[in-house]
Structures are given as structure tokens and as C-alpha cells.
């Protein structure tokens, strides 16, 4: 009986062995749809979706609402890319509760009423499970009443002025105190700054931030005094008069929140007026790697920025993230603070859905507090009951190549406090 040609009995040739190994390697990938189906069966649609969201047995629909056109496209492109990357990665892992994520992209076109209109379309017509989007405070304020009325869920990536908290929004960026207070304390301690000159663009975020900064400097932490406070219209490109005022005041620290195209003009003209890092200490809360692309490393090198994330952060999560991002969007792409915060959105949503065992907005809103993300590029983050993130604050020094060198980091996660007492 023992025929030598019996395939079962014959030892495998090398080639055959290789084929078998390859087949085994491919197994997880082949099993994925099966596993996903099994997982989906474990969470029947009728149970995970009691509020008529666009969720089927195989698919969950989410919305993405950013400005792909208009003046804000400059800033929002990074967020769009990071959110898409996170969603692609989640889908490659089998999706959420066994369902693939499908994205409906809407363009807010840098126009706030358009944001409101598109968010209504996403929530009422498309019945999306959640929305990743908005960048400016103005656009968030425009869509907020709609998310609250239609009971949607928004993951908002930008650092912002605080003074807001909603059941229907998860803020993955820093609120003002998380970004400002640590930076000012660091400036006073490490750079011996006693006088501060506050400069910002003229709209809600810089004004609220500077108000908090002034309170912190003058009355809460008593760091010293404010030597000047100035605001310039968005798009302003001539800062020579301001620079002379700064020269007259001779502050220890220029604390800047200038945004958009003005940013570029501001730093170019500072350098041209002889205010460089070797003579003047400057701390900004509005310059990330994205902005440095426009400003040019040589114009800002040596100045400091207060953020929670820098592309140069040295940890395993971030290395993998930077590599995946560059693979998807080209080796020259850079990652700023908000881009990273955008990347957190889909992951936090996934973790929350899995914890709640449901896509229903009410259950997600309730389950959000306490959600942990150990894989975040910025390091470990946790969602607070007030729907903001616990995160670290970091100070980076701008380098000639457009990257930041991390020079300081808060020892602990900083608690988000959108309504800080004593700063109103």
C-alpha cells in the first residue's frame, strides 16, 4: 500500500514547502473578511444601530467635512489626509465592529454657512455615524447647533480657545489652557522672561488665548507684566510698525498667535528688522511644521513653539505614523500638531464604538469619557468626561530644515479645562 508516489506520504520538496508557507502567510489576510463577517454577526445591525444611522451588516458611513478649497485649504489639507490615513488603516484591520468605513467627503469651502449646510446634509440626508471635520472655530460654531439638534457626533482636531463643551463634539486638539499655561511657565522658568509682548491675528482664537495668557502672567501665576498687546487683521502683511513698537517695548518674550498668510510676513519681517533668535526670545502658539513650510526655516530658526505634538517626537508610535503618512502622501509631506490630532479622531471613535458596542450617538457620547489610546503618535492620550483629551504639552525649537527640536515636555498629562476659573 505504501506507494512512494502517494502525495500525503511524500516529503515536500523545497518549492512545495515555500508555497505552503506563503499560503499560510496569506491566511490572516484571507481570513479577515471571514472574521469581519463573524464579528459583524456578533453585533447584529439591529442592535448596534437603533437610531437609523447609515450602518449595514458590512459597512458604516461616516462624514468628513473640511475646506478642500478656499483660504483655509492650506491648513485643512493635512487634517483631511491624516483622517483618511487613519480610516484606511482601520479598514485594513477589518473595520469597526466588522464593518468597513465608507467616507462621504464634503467641502466646506472656507465658508461658514456652507459648513452648516453641508453638516446638515451629512446628518439628515446621509445619516452618517459621525463626522470628522471643521478646523477654524468659526466653522465649528457654525455647525455646533446642527450637531446638537440632529444629534450627530463631531470629532474636531484643532487646538482652540476653549469655553465650549458639548455632548456632540469630541475635541482631539488642545483647549487654550493646555497649550498656553505650560508654555508661559516654561518661558518664565527657563528663559527668565518677565515682560511679555502679546501679538495675534484679530479674531476669537488669538483674542481668547491672549486674554488667558494675560491673566496667567499678571494675576494667576504672577510671572511678570504684559508690555504690549496687539492684534492685526487676517491677511495683514506689513508688520514694520508693530516691529518698531516691539523694539520700543524691549520685551523678554514675544508671545505670538499670528495665523495664515500674515504668519509668513510676520517672521520674514522680524528677521529683516534684525529681530532674530540670538537676540530675542519668541514663543508662538500658532506655528507648526505646516506653517514653517510657508515661512521658511531660515526665517524662524531658533524661535520656540508650544504644541502637544511635533513630527520629530521620538517614540515607536510616531515613527510608524510618520512612515505611513510619508508613504501615503509623499516623502516631502510634513505633519503638524493639528494633522496628528486629526489622525486621532477615527481611532478614538473606533475605540469608543467598540467599548459601547454600538454606533448610536448617545451611547458613544456616554462611553467617550475614559477612552484610552495607547497607539497615539503623541504618546498616550485619554478622553476626559468633558470630551477633551488629556495630553502633554511640549515646547519645540524651530530648526533650519523646518522641523522642531523638542526641548521641554510636561511631566504629566495635562487635564483639559475648557472653562478655567480665574481666567474669564
Amino acid at each position: 500500500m505504501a506507494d512512494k508516489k502517494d502525495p500525503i506520504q511524500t516529503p515536500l520538496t523545497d518549492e512545495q514547502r515555500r508555497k505552503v508557507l506563503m499560503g499560510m502567510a496569506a491566511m490572516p489576510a484571507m481570513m479577515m473578511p471571514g472574521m469581519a463577517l463573524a464579528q459583524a454577526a456578533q453585533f447584529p445591525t439591529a442592535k448596534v444601530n437603533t437610531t437609523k444611522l447609515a450602518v449595514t451588516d458590512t459597512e458604516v458611513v461616516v462624514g468628513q467635512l473640511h475646506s478642500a478649497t478656499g483660504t483655509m485649504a492650506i491648513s485643512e489639507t493635512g487634517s483631511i489626509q491624516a483622517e483618511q490615513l487613519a480610516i484606511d488603516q482601520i479598514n485594513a484591520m477589518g473595520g469597526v465592529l466588522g464593518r468597513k468605513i465608507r467616507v462621504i467627503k464634503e467641502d466646506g469651502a472656507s465658508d461658514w454657512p456652507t459648513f452648516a449646510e453641508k453638516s446638515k446634509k451629512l446628518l439628515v440626508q446621509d445619516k452618517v455615524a459621525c463626522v470628522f471635520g471643521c478646523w477654524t472655530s468659526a466653522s465649528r460654531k457654525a455647525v455646533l447647533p446642527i450637531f446638537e439638534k440632529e444629534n450627530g457626533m463631531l470629532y474636531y482636531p484643532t487646538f482652540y480657545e476653549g469655553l465650549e463643551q458639548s455632548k456632540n463634539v469630541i475635541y482631539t486638539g488642545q483647549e487654550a489652557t493646555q497649550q498656553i499655561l505650560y508654555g508661559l511657565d516654561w518661558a518664565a522658568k527657563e528663559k527668565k522672561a518677565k515682560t511679555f509682548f502679546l501679538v495675534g491675528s484679530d479674531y476669537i482664537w488669538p483674542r481668547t488665548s491672549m486674554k488667558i495668557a494675560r491673566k496667567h502672567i499678571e494675576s494667576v501665576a504672577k510671572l511678570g507684566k504684559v508690555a504690549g498687546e496687539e492684534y492685526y487683521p487676517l491677511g495683514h502683511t506689513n508688520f514694520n510698525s508693530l516691529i518698531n513698537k516691539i523694539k520700543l517695548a524691549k520685551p523678554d518674550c514675544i508671545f505670538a498667535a499670528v495665523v495664515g498668510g500674515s504668519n509668513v510676513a510676520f517672521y520674514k519681517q522680524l528677521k529683516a528688522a534684525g529681530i532674530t533668535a540670538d537676540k530675542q526670545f519668541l514663543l508662538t502658539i500658532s506655528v507648526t511644521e505646516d506653517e514653517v513650510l510657508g515661512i521658511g526655516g531660515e526665517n524662524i530658526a531658533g524661535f520656540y513653539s508650544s504644541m502637544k505634538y511635533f513630527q520629530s517626537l521620538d517614540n515607536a508610535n510616531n515613527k510608524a505614523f510618520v512612515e505611513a503618512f510619508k508613504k501615503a502622501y509623499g516623502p516631502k509631506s510634513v505633519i503638524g500638531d493639528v494633522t496628528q490630532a486629526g489622525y486621532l479622531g477615527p481611532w478614538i471613535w473606533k475605540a469608543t464604538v467598540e467599548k459601547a458596542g454600538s454606533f448610536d450617538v448617545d451611547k458613544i457620547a456616554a462611553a467617550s469619557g475614559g477612552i484610552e489610546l495607547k497607539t497615539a503618535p503623541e504618546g498616550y492620550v485619554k478622553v476626559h468626561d468633558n470630551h477633551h483629551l488629556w495630553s502633554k504639552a511640549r515646547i519645540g525649537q524651530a530648526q533650519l530644515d523646518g522641523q522642531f527640536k523638542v526641548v521641554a515636555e510636561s511631566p504629566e498629562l495635562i487635564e483639559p479645562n475648557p472653562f478655567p476659573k480665574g481666567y474669564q
Partner: protein
Amino acid sequence: MSLTDIMNITLMQGFAGLSLFSVLLLMGLGLAIIFGQMGVINMAHGEFMTIGAYTIYMFSSLTETFLPGFASMYFPFAIAAAFCIAFAFGWFIEWALIRHLYKRPLDTLLATWGLSLAMQQTFRSTFGAREVSPTLPDWLLGSWAPAEGLDIPINGLFVLALTALVTGGVLLALYRSRWGLRVRATVANRPMANATGINTSRTDRLTFAIGCGIAGIAGAAFTTIGSTGPTSGSLYIVDAFLVVTFGGAGSLLGTVASAFGIAQTQSIAEFFMTGSMAKVLTLMMIVTILMLRPQGLFASKIRR
């Protein structure tokens, strides 16, 4: 606060005003030719400036990649190229679009606005939505410090010199060259100019193209002080129209005077009050003067 400090600040503040003046004048100059002389409301003027700015950016990246040793010298060539590219494109746009609309000024407004949107999207598709910054040669960076505590920005000096050169060139061309003669004749009386053998449609095309070319130079110069993005042009266009209208359409001298007036008011006001209030004050002044003199500061005397 010593006396020398006050002296230094006063000097630097004076230069800040001059610097803003040269920026405004350079913005307005091309438009003064197109809008002032030809009466074409070119809403895409800002985008022609952006063409110039992106030309500098392209030259900067190309020299960095292929001719690193050339990095300190590319700038003047890039400015010349900015003029040529904007000139050529202006020539083409006049031929394709503007010449059909001379008798319909309001339609020109709409058509050129559409053109500006199309150009913005082209920039966005070609160069990306993010703002870019050319690497400037070292000699353009930093400041000239003739005394302790006195810093004169070199980029400001450069823009000032370039503005003087371009303004001088335009004045000379308009009042001392055959082309200038033809332009002035066409502006003054088109049928009569035609009758004397001037090819007015050719004059129009050349004039429009030269205006666009100057916009290209302006955009190129602004890369030294500001940013370049797909929508940068829209930052400049309002100021450019403001300068030309306030100065009095059709008068080049008016453009110079109005740029000077606006720049000094703005710059001095900015020093003594907040930036936003300074802007309000400047615009209020312009509105008041335009209410009293709707034709602008200098109106050209033409028998109508």
C-alpha cells in the same frame, strides 16, 4: 528710553512708511496702466502677481536642485522671468478674452473674476494648497545696521529700489517712447488715433501685457516680505484697486501720490493705535476724500 533710541525708532518708523509706500505703489502700478489707462477692470490682477511669485519659487527650487552654486544670483534673473511669463500670459488673455469685451466693462469684471478663480485653482492643483516660500539669497536677508539699535530691513530697501526702477521705467516709457505716445493717443481719443494710423488693437494688447508683466514683477518682489499661496492674489487686489482709484484713474502721478498718502497714514496710525483701528482710520480717510473728490486725487484733464 534715551534720545538715540527715540531717534532710531523714528528713523525706522519713517522707513516702515516708505517700505509700505513702495509695496502699495508696486501693486498699483500695473493696475494703473490696465485700469487707469485702458479702463479694463481686471479682477485677475492679483493672480498675475501670484504668477510672478510662483515664478520665483520655481526658480528657487530649480536652482537648488540643479545649480546650487548659482543660488546667490538667481533672483534678478527670476524677476526678469516673472515679467516675461506674466507678460506672455497677459498677451494671451487679452487676445482670448479681454479684446472681445472692451465695450462691455461690467462683463469684463465678471469675466476677469472668473479668470481669477480659474487661475487660483490652477495654482492649487499645480503647487498645492499650502503656502510656499522660495529660498532667498543671503544678501536679501537680514538688516543693514548703520548704527547700534538701528536696523533697516534689506528686503525693504530692495523693494524700494525695484519700485523706483519700475516706476521710472513706466513713466519714461509712457511719456518718452513711441508706445507711450500711442497709448496716450488711444486713451485720449480712440477713433482719432485709429484715423492717424495707430493700430489701436495692437496697442491695447501690448499695454495690457505690460501691465500684467509689471504685476508679475510686483508678485516676485513680494516673495521677499510675504507669503505665496494660491489665494495670495486676493490679498493684494483690494489694496491695488484702492491705490489706483484713490489716486485718480488715468493718472500715474496720482497713483504715486495716493500710495504715499495711504502708506504714511496707515503706518503712522499703526504705531500709535492698534492694527485694526489703523486700518479703519485709513479706510475712513479714503472714503471721506473720495466722497469729496469722486474723481480721485489727480484727475487727468481730458475733454469729453
